[in-house]
Each structure stands twice: as C-alpha cells, then as structure tokens.
C-alpha cells in the first residue's frame, strides 16, 4: 500500500458548532420534532400515582462504577430518571495544569480505565499538534495497532458486563463475563509483553512511543487474535438466544435525531443509524491507509448497540492483522529520550484532537502556556461516556427497572472518564 503523509489534524470544519457527525456532512432526515424535556413535571404524570423514589447507586452493583440515578417508579415502571455524576471526580484536568507534558500521560491512564491506551493516545496527539512534532511512521503503526487491540479488549469487557447486567452475578451472565475476561486477559498479556504493564502503560510519549515491539510480537498478536476470533463465535452462541433478544430488542431506543442532539458518539451513534466514525471520516495516524469498514444499525436499541460493538470487534481483529504485518522499520519516537521532565515548553497556542476511542469521540482540547509554559494552561477532555450518560433521562422513562439496568449497560459508561 502507498504510504502517504498524514497528520493528526481533524478536518477544518470541526472548529465549533454541532455534533462531529453533522460537521463532517453526514446526512440524516429528522424523524420527529425533537422534544428536549425529559424532566417532566411529576404532578402532570398522574394525580393518583403513588411514586416510589429509588436512589439507584452510587454503590449499586450494576451502575458501572459510582453513577447514581434517582428513579421515580410507578410499580416497576420508571416515570422519570435524574442522573447524578461526579462521584469519581478527581480533578484530573486541574492536575494537568500543574504537571509537565511528560508527566500527564501516566495519570490519564486512570481516566477511561477500560481503554487506557486511547487516553494516552488522545492526549499525546494533542501535545504533538501543539508542539508541531511529527510522529515517525513506525510509531503511527504501533499506536494504531495498540488502539485497535484496546478496542477489542474494551468491547470484550463491555460484552461481559452487559451480559452480567442481563443475567445477574450468579447465573449465565457471569459465565459470559468470565469468558470475555479470559479473552481480554490475552490482550493484556500482549500489552504486558510490550510495555511491562497490564493496565497503566505509559507507553505513548510526546513524539511517538516509549516501548518498541519485542521479538516475536507479531506472531503473538496473530496467535491471540486467532484465539479470540474462534472463541468469539463460540460463546456468542451462548448469548444469542430468545431471552437475550427479548431483553434487548426495542429497549432504550435512541433515534438519529436524539443521538445527534445529545452528542452521542462511537457505537451509540452508529447503532442509531448514523454512519460516522472518526477513523474513517477524520482519519489520524494511518487510518486513511486502512479501509475501515464502519458497522451501523438502524434500530437504535440495546440489541443494535450489541451488534455494532460485535462488528467492531471483528473489524478490529481484521485491522490488527493488517497492521501487525506491515509495521515499517524505523525509529519509534521523534523526540529525544526523556532526560528532564520539563523537556517540552510551549508558550502559547491551542489544539483540539479527537480520536475514536472504543466509547466514541475522545477529544482533548489544549491551551498552552500554563506554569511558565511547562504545563497546559487548560486541558479539557471530552469524554464520550459523559455524553452517553446524558441520554439516561431520555431512555429510562417508560421502561422497567430491569430494562434500565440493561440500557445503562448498553451505554457502556466509564465513570473514571465521565467524572475525570
């Protein structure tokens, strides 16, 4: 394949305004007038209804961390849902204003703790854009490979937890959960082989990667992908039966208009029928050399989100195989090896970089010039999970409590990222 010069720059029309999908010219027809009032007045619901107020979370087993949502229940039926975020707020963005550029990467691993590689990637791409540093080609390949492996691992974890939401901690759901974790472990093993860490890698740095691939790594990747691919179809048979379909079809439907209005991205947006993927529509690293097949589904319900994520696992497996066979020789980092934590100083400037993380558009907006140029003046992270949680008040009402758990699971929120 012809390797052309690429940049990490998003298209020019991504400056400001509406959803990224709209900016990149995705056509869609509004199906209905948008009704943006999920906070309905309870008095108008029904005069004689005796509503039960249930504070679901933050310690509830199925809220995927410390998410809390106050539900107003009429029997089992949810009338109104008020989400509360912020229980895992750690002030990461503020902390970034004090840390040097090299020191920011490791703390970002804790943001989206299911896809740490993508956090590092998003931030370092923003730093590089700010500092106008070009990443060597080998590193671009490596970063893309890591991002795709991370996508598989993240979606596998999602599949496991979603099955557990549907099937309970003491039943068939846990079996699928254990299988998914077994497969995810294999990818963590690969990352351990590469970086020495299983979770908090700190492998991306400004200008490239810190760890080069060890001998025999491509063979190991192929072996792992083969195992995952063969087992995937094996245990999906366990999941795809009438009970699963009954529990997910028509549940938590997001139509295209609502998805765009809420700023949903990633698999959630694609499951609502909008064909948008930053890997294809605003390619970074070497995605413009890869023909990324974007999976979409028109239904917009939990089943559609499940299907889209599964397709993405399969597509990522294909991309990983392609990538690992074609990694070019060369340096993996274009900057000097780190000798001083304040190696990089930027006086002024701004940069916004968005990547397609497993959960959607993970953006980093950077204003340089804090701490005498050693740190960002402001670093804003756009977490896809936070926007996904914004859908909760729209999706929960008219469903039962059991459905609410399924819907929340299908949104795949990671609180570490949403609360930062």
């Amino acid at each position, binding site marked *: 394949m012809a390797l052309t010069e690429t940049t990490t720059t998003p298209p020019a029309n991504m400056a400001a305004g509406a959803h990224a999908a709209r900016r990149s010219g995705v056509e869609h027809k509004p199906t209905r007038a948008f009704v943006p009032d999920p906070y309905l007045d309870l008095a108008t619901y029904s005069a004689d209804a005796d509503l039960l107020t249930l504070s679901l979370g933050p310690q509830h087993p199925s809220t995927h961390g410390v998410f809390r949502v106050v539900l107003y229940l009429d029997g089992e039926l949810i009338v109104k849902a008020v989400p509360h975020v912020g229980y895992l707020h750690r002030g990461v963005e503020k902390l970034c204003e004090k840390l040097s550029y090299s020191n920011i990467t490791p703390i970002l691993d804790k943001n989206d703790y299911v896809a740490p590689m993508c956090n590092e990637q998003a931030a370092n791409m923003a730093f590089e854009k700010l500092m106008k540093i070009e990443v060597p080609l080998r590193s671009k390949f490596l970063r893309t490979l890591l991002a795709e492996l991370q996508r598989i691992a993240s979606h596998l974890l999602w599949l496991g937890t979603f099955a557990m939401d549907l099937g309970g901690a003491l039943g068939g759901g846990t079996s699928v959960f254990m299988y998914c974790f077994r497969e995810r472990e294999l990818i963590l093993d690969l990352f351990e082989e590469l970086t020495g860490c299983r979770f908090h890698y700190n492998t991306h740095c400004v200008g490239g990667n810190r760890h080069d691939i060890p001998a025999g790594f491509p063979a190991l990747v192929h072996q792992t992908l083969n195992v995952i691919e063969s087992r995937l179809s094996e245990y999906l048979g366990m999941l795809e039966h009438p009970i699963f379909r*009954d529990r997910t079809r028509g549940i938590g439907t997001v139509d295209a208009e609502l998805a765009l209005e809420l700023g949903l991205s990633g698999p959630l947006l694609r499951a609502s029928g909008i064909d948008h993927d930053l890997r294809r529509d605003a390619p970074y690293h070497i995605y413009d050399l890869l023909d990324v097949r974007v999976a979409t589904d028109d239904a917009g319900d939990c089943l559609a989100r499940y299907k889209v994520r599964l397709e993405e696992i399969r597509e990522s497996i294909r991309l990983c195989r392609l990538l690992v066979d074609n990694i070019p020789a060369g340096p993996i980092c274009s900057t000097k090896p780190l000798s001083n934590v304040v190696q990089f100083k930027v006086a002024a400037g701004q940069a916004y970089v968005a990547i397609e993380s497993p959960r959607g558009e993970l953006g980093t907006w950077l204003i340089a010039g804090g701490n005498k140029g050693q740190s960002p003046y402001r670093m804003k992270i756009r977490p896809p999970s936070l926007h996904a949680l914004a859908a909760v008040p729209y999706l929960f009402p008219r469903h039962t409590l059991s459905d609410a758990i399924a819907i929340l699971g299908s949104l795949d929120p990671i609180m570490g990222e949403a609360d930062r």
Partner: protein
Amino acid sequence: MAELLVNPWLRGLLHGALLITVLMTAVAWISWFERKFAGRVQSRLGPTMVGPSGLLQPLADALKMFQKEDIIPRGADSRLFRLAPPLTLFLALATAAVLPITPGMLASDLDIGVLYALAFSGLLSFPIWVAGWSSANKYALLGGMRMVAQGISYEIPMVLSALVPVVVTGSLSLSDIVKYQASHHWLVFSPPGIGIVAFLLFFTTSLAESNRIPFDIPEAESELVAGPTTEYTAIRFGLFASAEYAHSVVSCALASALFLGGWDGPWLPPVVWMLLKTAALFILVTWVRWSLLRLRSDQLMALCWKYLVPVSLGLLLLTGVWVHFAG
C-alpha cells in the same frame, strides 16, 4: 424397638428427623457442588482451598455465617424480619415430608401428598415477601412484590401440570403415584406426548417457584442488589440460602417422583434410583442457571399467563380424554 416403629407418631418423628438431617447435609454439599459446577462452566476451579477439592468449604461457609454480625435495620419490622428466614426454611423442609424415598420410607404417607407438597411450596413465596416487606428497604420491597406476583402466577401451571399424574393414577398420594409407575409406565412416557410436556411444564414452573435463573427476578442481583434478602446478614441470610437450595432439591425430588418413576428402576436399590434421578434433575437446574440470562418480570408474567396456563389446561383436558378412552 420394632413395636416403637409401629407407632405412627414415633415413626413419623424419626423419619422426619432423618430426612431433615439428610436434606440439610445434602444442601451443604450441594452448594459445594454448584460452586464447583459453576467453576467448570466458567473455566475456573471453584473452591479448592478448604479440604481436598474444597470439600470442607460448606463447613467454612456455615462457620462464617454464624460468626458474622447480625444486623436488623433500624426501620425494619423486627419481629417479622426475624420470623421470615426460619419460616422459609421450615416450609422448604416441610415439603419433603411426603417424598417417597423408598417404597417403605417416607415421613408421612399422606393421602393428599401431592396437594400438601404443592401447597407448602406455594406458601414459600410468602415468608420471602414478608422478608422484603419488613426490611424497610426499597429493593427488598420490590423483590418481595415480584416474588408474590411470580409465586402466585406460577403456582397455577405447576398445580395443573402436577394434576396430570393425579388424573392418570387416580390418587393424590405420592407413594401411590410412584407405585403405579413401578407397575405400569413412568408417567413421563405414559400418556404418550402428554407426559413429557407435563413433566417439562412442571420442571419449568418449579424452577420459577424456587427462584432459579432464568426466573430469579425477585432476587435479581443486578437490579435489586439481593432482592428480599438485601438487608439480611449472618445466619439469617444463611437460612435463606439453604432454604433456596432445599427447595430446589425438593422440587427436583418431587418432579422425579411424579414423572420419572421415583424409586423405581432396575438392578440398583430404590433409594439409589431416587437419589440418582433427583441429582440428575438438579444438575440440569444448575446447568440452566449458569447458562441462561434472566427474564424481565413482565415477560415472566406473559410467559406464564399467555403460554403456560393455557398449555397446562389443555394438557389436563387431553389427559382426561386419554384416561377415558385408553386408560
């Protein structure tokens, strides 16, 4: 000694004590078996540390249960809260009284054994509801309400499908039903086609009665934390857990007595056949539990009222016709 055993009261007491001892011991090691089984299903090992192959794990669990702090929530209705766990276990064990383990061995050969067993197993949803109600916890309350709705709904197809053997054999006594099967055919085969469907219906509804996946919506850990037992700790929680296992085992034994010929079988002694059939059914229950997802409560109700109740009514009608013309 022999004269003592002739006394029906003494005999009943002895058999009852024996049954409870055996059943509770079985429940302990059934929990070990289930954990091992789940471990194998999920490609892990299950308990391994306490004793050989983790065989002493149930003892360790029981010891732990006794040592834990016993907490009664401040807002709870303390008397009902304390009443619910032992009542649950009592009802689960009481069902076992009419089980014919061997031709001669059963605690009480009631004339209305089938009715008695179904009534007690149907009553079981009420102490669980009491637990949910008295806990002063919203999850527990929701779980308790689900339990009542599910218990009452599934009672109907369960009783109707259990009536198929009663109609065929013309007796409500469990020992008579098993004796009939020993001399004729097992009822799972006997009204051809009808028997197997009735057995499947009975087995499915008894899964629902004993709160096993895919029908465990009252407990529903992922939604209701632990359902009616959310606020329970220590041995009170342990009583609920053992009651659930006891109920599952008794349901399996009941199903094998009603449809699979109970103690009837060649070569082996009757007690072994009874235990083998019960164990086989329990393995099936466990297998289903660790393979399936859970239904939603309204889907559960729809399944019961739209499909199971009409089918079981039809079965009963067909059985009547069969008995009239062929029986």
